[in-house]
């Protein structure tokens, strides 16, 4: 077979090319020919096809994501915004924090362990590429029905993979979510987030400038795994049609990645790189074109210098390979020797594969012949943009009309008690310790709060005790009922969780998991959710620093619930002031902050007791969330509250149960005036938290709430070894503990 060089392509305009098989549309192929003024070579076609895939180009979502850049709140914290590998925020004392959430959904269904493991690997490299030391990971997960046999295959594999990779990297896992719902049966969601810390001056950007600078590929050798993974895995509806159609999945090597982290940090410390990029989806195609595109444009790469694991790979395959644990750096010539020395120290293979040139073209050579000659921007940043049609689904009105308020409610204390036990034992509300105990939360010796808490928190400076906190949330049931409100509820909940831990929310990242963008119903959900999130961030003052979109999460015609997952990052000046969820002191007073309304649409109660999903989700009031956040933060800073737990799915009784079990103390609760016991216990009204206040602080605390206009209702006291709702029922902690903790092991342990 003759090599398809640029020259050859120019001379043979009529050669048939497999653009369709590579996932390109006819007009996209035509545009490539127009850009190049000739037909693309095989290698160019490979690059365009992966880079113009949904996963890399965001072609369906771009027009909506634009809002995150348009509706930016006033916020001095933002140092690097959307568009880089990850956003960066200022957390004070000269420190900057970078964080991001990504999805690895489809691969994790096919090969749960490796799919999830490489998901962690990918997000960690993103953070590393910003110049930061990764300090923690989080993992929001969604699975099919808890008792479905395939969940027994997928969940343990995913959890083992996340643990296997993250534990081996030495990154504490400080939070996440586990949600079960039949809608995720064929499309589990495996989102992974990472937080990194650096000094302001260490921020690195992915760009290649300075002609003569060397392009160095370092890390693992390039192999034949994951070729075309980007386009096949992320762009087409996944159908499990037997082995032949199964796309390749990569196997991760966390040990190699750990070396890559240490090696890269040492390289940063000596200021040896001018630009850096991780290799993720679309491999070298992405790294070279993005580096060149963000710089001055010109780059020359000798592809035959790339170290291979399999010598039979074609140049197209090398360009598309998604082999894990690789990075690409741009290095001034005088630093190359030292760069290589550090790589050698860490047993990391490093090779100069090219250099930055004067021109504006990305040129790639194979055995001396030019096989790629493209303007890099057209590959990396000027991909197709679609205005996909969207319309409010025809079924939306009926769904919202199916009000949860009409569902039968418990009629006696006895019935209430039964329903409480059912609720706290239901898979979604049950303890996730069986899962989270498989993650190392202590490594690095800086973990202040981890599972089960409202937010994970790590110390980032040992001298000053500066810390950062993160919570991730997203309720697909709410978003299904109303995607605009659902996205804001996700934001509000994560924000509230961070504030409840005592940290000040600063900025967010998100992972938007939806069905097929070619379905106008789904596209409407997406449009509404992004609009809700952008409006919400503007109002709360927390900018979107970056994120990820995962589309085509559907089985046949059926899409998953729209699932926007929001990660909120917060900062705390002194981690000594953190607020845990545990009710640790008997005799302390319990206050419910916020307003409780009859809101049951999408609630855990409606799901667990009635298997119902309908009506409207709880109302959102972001100004109220902000006020609640301020109170929680002041309360913690000034020592007025010893414990706080936000109220979300499952309502008050769920939160109180968790705080009591964690602290090993019971609680006596009184139903406040104007509320019935059922609404008091199960309502999911947003903007609420329960706090434990030392008696000596009661006045100061209620005065503060009163002065600021936040309703604070005394609902009881930490006491005894049971949760007693006066006049209704009493449940011993032992009974609650068994109900809460036995469910997940019973479903999943062998």
């Amino acid at each position, binding site marked *: 077979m003759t090599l398809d060089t640029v020259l050859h392509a120019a001379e043979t305009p009529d050669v048939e090319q497999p653009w369709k098989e590579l996932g390109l549309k006819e007009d996209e192929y035509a545009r490539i020919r127009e850009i190049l003024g000739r037909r693309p070579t095989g290698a160019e076609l490979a690059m365009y096809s992966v880079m113009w895939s949904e996963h890399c180009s965001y072609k369906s979502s771009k027009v909506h994501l634009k809002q995150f850049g348009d509706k930016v709140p006033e916020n001095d914290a933002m140092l690097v915004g959307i568009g880089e590998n990850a956003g960066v925020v200022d957390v004070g004392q000269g420190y900057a924090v970078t964080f991001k959430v990504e999805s690895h959904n489809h691969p994790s269904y096919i090969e749960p362990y490796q799919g999830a493991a490489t998901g962690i690997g990918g997000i960690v490299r993103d953070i590393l590429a910003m110049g930061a030391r990764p300090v923690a990971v989080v993992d929001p997960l969604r699975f099919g029905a808890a008792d479905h046999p395939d969940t027994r295959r997928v969940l343990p594999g995913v959890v083992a993979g996340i*643990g296997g990779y993250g534990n081996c990297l030495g990154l504490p896992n400080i939070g996440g979510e586990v949600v079960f719902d039949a809608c995720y049966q064929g499309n589990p969601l495996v989102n992974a987030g990472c937080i990194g810390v650096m000094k302001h001056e260490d921020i690195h950007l992915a760009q290649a400038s300075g002609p003569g600078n060397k392009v160095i590929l370092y890390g693992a050798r390039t192999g034949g795994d994951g070729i075309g993974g980007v386009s096949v895995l992320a762009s087409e509806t996944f159908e499990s049609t037997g082995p032949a159609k199964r796309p390749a999945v990569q196997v991760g090597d966390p*040990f190699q990645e*750990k070396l890559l982290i240490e090696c890269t940090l040492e390289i940063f410390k000596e200021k040896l790189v001018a630009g850096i990029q991780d290799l993720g989806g679309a491999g070298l195609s992405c790294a070279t074109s993005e580096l060149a595109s963000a710089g001055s444009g010109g780059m020359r790469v000798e592809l035959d210098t790339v170290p291979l694991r399999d010598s039979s790979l074609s140049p197209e395959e090398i360009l598309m390979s998604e082999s894990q644990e690789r990075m690409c750096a741009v290095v001034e010539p005088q630093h190359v020797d030292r760069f290589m020395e550090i790589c050698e120290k860490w047993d990391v293979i490093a090779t100069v594969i090219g250099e930055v040139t004067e021109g504006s073209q990305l040129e790639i050579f194979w055995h001396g012949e030019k096989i790629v000659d493209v303007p890099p921007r057209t590959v990396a940043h000027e991909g197709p943009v679609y205005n996909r049609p969207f319309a409010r689904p025809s079924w939306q009105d009926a769904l919202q009309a199916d009000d949860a308020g009409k569902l039968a409610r418990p009629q006696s204390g006895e019935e209430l008690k039964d329903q409480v036990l059912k609720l706290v034992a239901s898979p979604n509300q049950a303890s996730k310790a069986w899962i989270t105990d498989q993650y190392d939360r*202590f*490594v690095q010796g800086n973990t202040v709060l981890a599972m089960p808490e409202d937010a994970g928190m790590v110390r980032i400076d*040992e001298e000053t005790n500066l810390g950062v906190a993160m919570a991730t949330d997203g309720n697909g049931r709410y978003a299904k009922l109303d995607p605009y409100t659902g996205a804001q509820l996700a934001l509000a909940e994560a924000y509230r969780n961070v504030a409840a831990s005592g940290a000040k929310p600063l900025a967010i990242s998100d992972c938007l998991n939806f069905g097929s963008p070619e379905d106008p119903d789904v596209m409407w959900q997406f449009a509404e959710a992004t609009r809700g999130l952008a409006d919400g961030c503007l109002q709360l003052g927390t900018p979107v620093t970056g994120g990820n979109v995962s589309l085509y999460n559907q089985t046949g015609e059926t899409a998953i619930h729209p699932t926007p997952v929001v990660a909120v990052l917060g900062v705390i000046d002194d981690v000594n002031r953190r607020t845990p969820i545990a009710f640790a002191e008997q005799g302390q007073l319990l206050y419910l902050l916020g307003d409780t309304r009859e809101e049951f649409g999408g609630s855990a109660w409606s799901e667990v007791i009635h298997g119902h999903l309908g009506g409207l989700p709880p109302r959102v009031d972001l100004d109220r969330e902000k006020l609640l956040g301020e109170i929680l933060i002041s309360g913690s800073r000034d020592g007025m509250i010893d414990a706080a737990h936000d109220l979300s799915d499952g309502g008050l009784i769920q939160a109180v149960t968790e705080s009591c079990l964690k602290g090993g103390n019971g609680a006596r609760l009184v139903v406040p005036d104007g509320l019935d016991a059922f609404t008091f216990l199960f309502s999911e009204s947003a903007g609420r938290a329960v706090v434990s206040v030392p008696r000596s602080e009661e006045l100061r605390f209620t005065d503060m709430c009163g002065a600021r206009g936040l309703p604070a209702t005394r609902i009881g006291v930490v006491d005894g070894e049971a949760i007693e709702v006066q006049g209704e029922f009493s449940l011993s902690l032992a009974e609650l503990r068994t109900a809460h903790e036995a469910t997940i092991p019973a479903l999943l342990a062998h």
Partner: protein
Amino acid sequence: MTARIGVVTFPGTLDDRDSLRAVRIAGAEPVSLWHRDKDLKQVDAIVLAGGFSYGDYLRAGAISRFSPVMETVIEQARAGMPVLGICNGFQILTESHLLPGAMLRNNHLHFICREQKLRVENAETAWTADYEAGQEIRVPLKNMDGRYVADERTLDELEAEGRVAFRYLDGNPNGSLRDIAGITNAAGNVVGLMPHPEHAVEPLIGTGRTDGLGFFTSILKKLVNA
């Protein structure tokens, strides 16, 4: 006068920084050691820290055991230098035959991370003198291959000589024979255990207890008083 305590970093070691911190908090001088150097930089004692050296590939500790630094560590340990192996470090010590037995995959096959209650059975080793025999402590446990096994004869010998240094309480987390969490050599200078004392040295961090600090103060006192 203080003591110099070295912490070895192998490729894939994770808890080296934490161990150095624990050494510092205890008041000793922390010294980083590198797996490729045979030179121990005149340290008085050595910590083999936890983590996944060489990714735990093949078997935990199996590849690290053959590194240059271990040549000197093995030699010095035999000559009486105090060596503490935590988690992966314990695995390296058994692979090096400085301690008997072997570590296997947890019987439930999962990585386990939790706070673990232990009993200090032997408070006379170089690393446990600050504890009382029989004292109960709680420190984090986190590992995949924490199941201690040895043949019956070795186990009986360990018991008879008081060389079972730590035992799991309130439930065996991994199927370790005779609830063994850590052991010592006959001389008491080489100690290995699976749980992580270096993660329990500050009141705010991790599980919020400082029960592990005694390991580092024990060795410091011993070295300074020597």
